[in-house]
C-alpha cells in the first residue's frame, strides 16, 4: 500500500475523519504503542478509545500471538518489510471481556506532521453475516451466468463471442475493465480483440500484439503456462501498473487462458474493484471455458467449407450441441437440465440415454432417462429397481468403470456380454428387451470431482457409435457437467441462506413443548402448595408427581440444547474421537438395553454374528450414532412396527443396517435428510417431533471415523434402511500395523 502523507491535516480534523468511518481504526507508533483509536473500536472489541490509547497493541491480541507480533513488528521497523500490508488478513482479536473474535485487518503506513511513520490498522468483524452476504452475491452471479450461457452458446463468430464475454464481465460481474485477446498460432502472439469498462491507459499492456514466449504481461504468462491467475490485493505488485491500480481502486484481477482441448485460442483479463469470492472466480472460469468451446465450434463450422463431408458431420455435431446447450441453460435445477438433455439426444443421437449421479452411499441416482421406444420405460424401471448397477459387479459395470476411472467407456455390446453381466434369467430378459448394441458412457466431471456419468446407448439394429460420436458425447457431457455443477452450487448457496431460517423455526418450535411442560408443572406446584385444606397424603403425591415431571421436562430440554451444541461444534470441525478396542455386537446390545422404554426394547430385533466383531472405535460416539438410528426407526414406525438391526462384516469393513417398516422416505429426500435442520416432508407434516439434527450429526461422526452412511427406501409408507459402513480400525492405526514387522 502506498505511503500517504497526512501533513496539513490537523489532529482534530484527522480524528473527526476517522470517527466517521464505520470500520474500527487503530493507529500505532513504532514502539507498538496505540496512539489513536476511533469510536467504532468500542462496538467491535468493547474497548473505549481512551482505554486503548497509550497501551500496547498486545491489549487487543490473544496472548499466543504476542511473540509473532513482536517478531513481525521488529522486522518491519528495522527493515521496512511489509509482509502483511498486501491486502486484508484474517486473525483473532481479543475483546475487552477476554473473549476472542475473528476480524479482517487491513494495514497502511502513514506519517504524522513531523514525518514520523505510523501504522494504521482498519478492522472489520468477520462474522457469519458476511458469509450470508457473500452467498447472496453468489446467487446473483449464478443467475447472471445462466443468462450469459445462452448468450454465449448461440454465437458462431469468435469476435462476437469475445465481445459477449467482455460485456458479461462488465455488466453482470461488475468488472472495472475486461479485455480479451485472440491467439495467432502462426506467430504465437496474442492480438487484442475486445476491451470493455473503463477506457484508460495501462502501462505495458496497451500494445495490440503481445509475444507469448517473451512478454512478462500476465496475459502472456497465463497463455504460456495455460494456468489461470487470480489475485486479490494488487497494491505493490510490480506486475501491475500501480498508478492504474491506485487511481481505479482495483482490488482483484482474474486472468485466464482460453483453451479448447489442448489448443490455445486466446486469453482474457478482468480487473475488479471488489474481492472475487472463489465461487465467482470458478463461475468466470466456466464462462471462459464455454467461450473457448464456442470459438472452437465456430472454427469447426469455418472448416466446413474446406471439406464438405467432414463438415456435414461437424454441423450435425454443432447443431446437436447448440440444441443441448440451449436446453441445458434454461434451468438451475439439475433434474430439469438433465431431462431436457436426454429429451434432445433421443432418438437422433442415441436410442437410450440415462443420467446418473453418484450419491453418498454406493448406489447411483438416475436423475433423467429416456428411451426411443416408450414401451421399454417399464423394463428400464424394473431393471434399475431390481438390478441396480453395483460397485462390486464382475465384470465391472460400464457406468461404475467410467466413474471410478474418470474416463469414457466406449464399446460394442454382444449378446454374450449381456449374458455374462446378467445375474439371473429375468435380468438377461430385461437387458435384451432394452436392446443394447453399443454404448458410450462418459463421466460427469465438475470441479475436479466425478459427479456421475451419462450413458448413451444405441440398439443393435443401428450402426454403433464411431469416433466422432464419442467426441460429440463427450462435448454434450462436458456441457451437462457445467450446468449440473452450477445447479448444485446454486442449491448449496440457497441452502446456506435457508439454514438459518430453518434453525430458528425448528428450534423455537421444539423448545416450546418441553418448556410448556416445565412451566406448567412449576405453576401447578405453586398452586397446590398454596391450596388450603387438601389431604396431606394426596398433596404429597401430587407434589412428587410434579417434581418428577419437572425433572423429565428439564432432561428433555437439556437433550435438545446438547443436540444443538453438538451440531454447532461439529460444523466445520473434526469430531474428537477416543477410540478403544470394542466388540460391535456388544455396543449394539448395550445401545438397545439403554432405551428408556421397555416396550420399545421389545420392538427391536437383532441379527448379530455369533463371533465378536472386534475393532477400534469411540464407544460413546458409536453408541450415539446407533442409538440415533434405532430411535428414529422406532419413532417413524407407527402402529408399533418392528425394527431390525443387523451387523455384518466384509474383510476390514463392518456394516450396521437398521431397517424399519415405517413411513419411508421419498427418493429425492434420501440425501437431503442428512442436512442439518432438514426433515423429510412426510416426517414434518405428520408432526413427528425432531430438530432435524440427529442424522446430520451422525453422518459427521461416521465420516470422521473413516466410514460412510446412507439411507435407502422403497418409497413413502414402505419403510427405510439406514446403513453405516465403518473400517475396523482408523486408517492411521491400520497403516502402523502394516508397517510393523
Amino acid at each position, binding site marked *: 500500500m502506498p505511503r500517504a502523507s497526512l501533513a496539513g491535516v490537523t489532529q482534530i480534523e484527522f480524528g473527526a475523519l476517522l470517527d466517521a468511518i464505520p470500520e474500527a481504526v487503530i493507529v500505532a507508533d513504532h514502539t507498538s504503542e496505540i496512539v489513536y483509536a476511533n469510536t467504532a473500536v468500542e462496538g467491535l472489541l468493547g474497548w473505549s478509545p481512551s482505554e486503548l490509547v497509550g497501551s500496547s497493541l498486545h491489549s487487543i491480541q490473544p496472548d499466543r500471538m504476542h511473540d509473532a507480533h513482536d517478531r513481525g513488528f521488529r522486522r518491519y521497523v528495522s527493515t521496512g518489510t511489509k509482509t502483511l500490508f498486501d491486502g486484508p488478513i484474517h486473525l483473532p482479536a481479543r475483546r475487552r471481556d477476554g473473549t476472542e473474535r475473528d476480524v479482517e485487518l487491513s494495514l497502511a503506513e502513514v506519517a504524522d506532521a513531523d514525518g514520523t511513520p505510523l501504522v494504521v490498522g482498519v478492522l472489520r468483524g468477520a462474522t457469519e453475516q458476511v458469509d450470508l452476504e457473500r452467498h447472496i452475491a453468489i446467487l446473483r452471479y449464478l443467475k447472471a451466468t445462466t443468462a450469459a450461457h445462452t448468450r454465449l452458446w448461440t454465437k458462431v463468430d469468435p469476435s462476437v463471442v469475445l465481445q459477449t464475454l467482455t460485456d458479461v464481465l462488465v455488466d453482470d460481474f461488475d468488472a472495472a475493465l475486461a479485455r480479451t485477446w485472440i491467439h495467432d498460432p502462426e506467430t504465437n502472439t496474442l492480438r487484442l480483440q475486445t476491451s470493455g469498462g473503463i477506457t484508460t491507459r495501462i502501462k505495458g499492456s496497451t500494445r495490440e500484439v503481445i509475444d507469448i514466449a517473451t512478454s512478462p504481461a500476465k496475459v502472456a504468462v497465463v497463455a504460456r503456462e495455460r494456468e489461470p491467475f487470480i489475485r486479490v490485493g494488487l497494491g505493490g505488485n510490480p506486475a501491475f501498473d500501480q498508478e492504474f491500480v491506485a487511481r481505479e481502486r482495483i482490488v482483484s484481477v482474474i486472468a485466464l487462458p482460453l483453451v479448447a482441448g489442448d489448443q490455445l485460442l486466446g486469453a482474457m483479463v478482468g480487473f475488479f474493484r471488489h474481492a472475487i469470492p472463489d465461487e465467482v472466480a470458478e463461475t468466470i472460469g466456466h464462462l471462459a471455458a464455454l467461450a473457448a468451446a464456442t470459438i472452437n465450434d465456430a472454427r469447426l463450422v469455418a472448416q466446413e467449407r474446406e471439406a464438405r463431408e467432414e463438415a456435414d458431420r461437424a454441423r450435425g455435431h454443432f447443431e446437436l450441441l447448440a440444441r443441448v446447450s440451449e436446453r441445458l441453460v434454461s434451468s438451475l435445477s439439475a433434474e430439469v437440465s438433465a431431462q431436457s438433455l436426454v429429451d434432445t439426444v433421443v432418438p437422433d443421437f442415441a436410442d437410450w440415454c440415462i443420467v446418473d449421479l453418484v450419491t453418498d452411499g454406493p448406489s447411483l441416482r438416475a436423475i433423467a432417462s429416456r428411451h426411443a421406444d416408450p414401451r421399454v420405460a417399464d423394463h428400464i424401471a424394473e431393471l434399475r429397481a431390481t438390478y441396480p448397477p453395483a460397485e462390486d459387479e464382475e465384470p465391472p459395470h460400464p457406468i461404475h468403470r467410467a466413474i471410478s476411472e474418470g474416463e469414457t467407456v466406449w464399446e460394442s455390446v454382444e449378446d454374450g456380454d449381456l449374458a455374462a453381466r446378467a445375474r439371473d434369467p429375468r435380468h438377461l430378459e430385461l437387458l435384451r428387451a432394452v436392446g443394447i448394441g453399443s454404448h458410450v458412457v462418459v463421466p460427469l466431471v465438475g470441479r475436479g470431482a466425478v459427479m456421475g456419468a451419462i450413458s448413451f446407448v444405441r440398439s443393435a439394429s443401428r450402426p454403433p457409435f464411431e469416433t466422432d460420436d464419442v467426441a460429440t458425447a463427450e462435448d454434450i457431457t462436458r456441457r451437462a457437467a457445467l450446468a449440473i455443477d452450477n445447479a448444485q452450487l446454486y442449491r448449496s448457496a440457497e441452502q446456506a441462506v435457508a439454514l438459518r431460517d430453518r434453525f430458528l423455526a425448528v428450534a423455537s*418450535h421444539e423448545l*416450546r413443548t418441553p418448556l*410448556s*411442560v416445565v412451566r*406448567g408443572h412449576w*405453576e*401447578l406446584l405453586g398452586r397446590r402448595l398454596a391450596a388450603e385444606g387438601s389431604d396431606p397424603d394426596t398433596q404429597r403425591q401430587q407434589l412428587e408427581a*410434579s417434581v418428577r*415431571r419437572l425433572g423429565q421436562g428439564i432432561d428433555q430440554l437439556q437433550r435438545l440444547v446438547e443436540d444443538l451444541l453438538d451440531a454447532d461444534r461439529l460444523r466445520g470441525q473434526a469430531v474428537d474421537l477416543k477410540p478403544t478396542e470394542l466388540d460391535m455386537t456388544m455396543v449394539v446390545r448395550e445401545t438397545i438395553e439403554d432405551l428408556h422404554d421397555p416396550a420399545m426394547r421389545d420392538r427391536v430385533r437383532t441379527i448379530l454374528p455369533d463371533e465378536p466383531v472386534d475393532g477400534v472405535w469411540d464407544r460413546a460416539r458409536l453408541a450415539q450414532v446407533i442409538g440415533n438410528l434405532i430411535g428414529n426407526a422406532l419413532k417413524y414406525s407407527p402402529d408399533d412396527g418392528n425394527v431390525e438391526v443387523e451387523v455384518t462384516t466384509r474383510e476390514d469393513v463392518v456394516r450396521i443396517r437398521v431397517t424399519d417398516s415405517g413411513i419411508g422416505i421419498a427418493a429425492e429426500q434420501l440425501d437431503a435428510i442428512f442436512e442439518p435442520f432438514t426433515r423429510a416432508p412426510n416426517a414434518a407434516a*405428520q408432526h413427528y417431533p425432531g430438530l432435524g439434527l440427529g442424522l446430520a450429526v451422525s453422518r459427521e461422526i461416521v465420516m470422521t471415523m473413516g466410514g460412510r452412511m446412507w439411507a435407502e427406501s422403497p418409497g413413502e409408507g414402505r419403510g427405510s434402511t439406514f446403513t453405516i459402513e465403518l473400517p475396523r480400525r482408523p486408517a492411521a492405526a491400520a497403516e502402523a500395523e502394516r508397517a510393523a514387522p
Partner: protein
Amino acid sequence: MILIVEDEPAIVEVIRSVLEDEGHVVQSAPDGVAALDMLRDGIRPCLAIVDLMMPRMDGWQLREHMLAEPDLADIPVAVVSAFVGEISDLDVSAIIRKPFDLAEIVEIADQHCGSG
C-alpha cells in the same frame, strides 16, 4: 366437561391437573381422529382445548371437520400452539401460545364452563 386434544402426554397431564384442581371434569384425546370419534359418539364439551400440531389429524383439520357438522360447529374451541408465525383462517374462541400460563387456561375454562 372439557375436552383436551393433544398428543404430548406430559402437556395433557399438566392441563388436566390444573383444571381438575379447579373442579372441572376433563377428558382427553391423543389426536384429531380420536377427538372427532368422541364428539360423533355424542359427548358435548363446554370447551375443547386443541393442539395444532398432532399426528394423523391436526388441529386445523379437526376444526374444519367440526365447522362442517352443524352439531359440532358451536362447541367453543381454544387452540394451543408452539407455532411461531401468525395463525390465520382459524375460527376459534382463543389462541394459547406455548409455553403457556396456567392462569390463562383456567380463565378461558371458567369463561366457557363456569368456575368448576
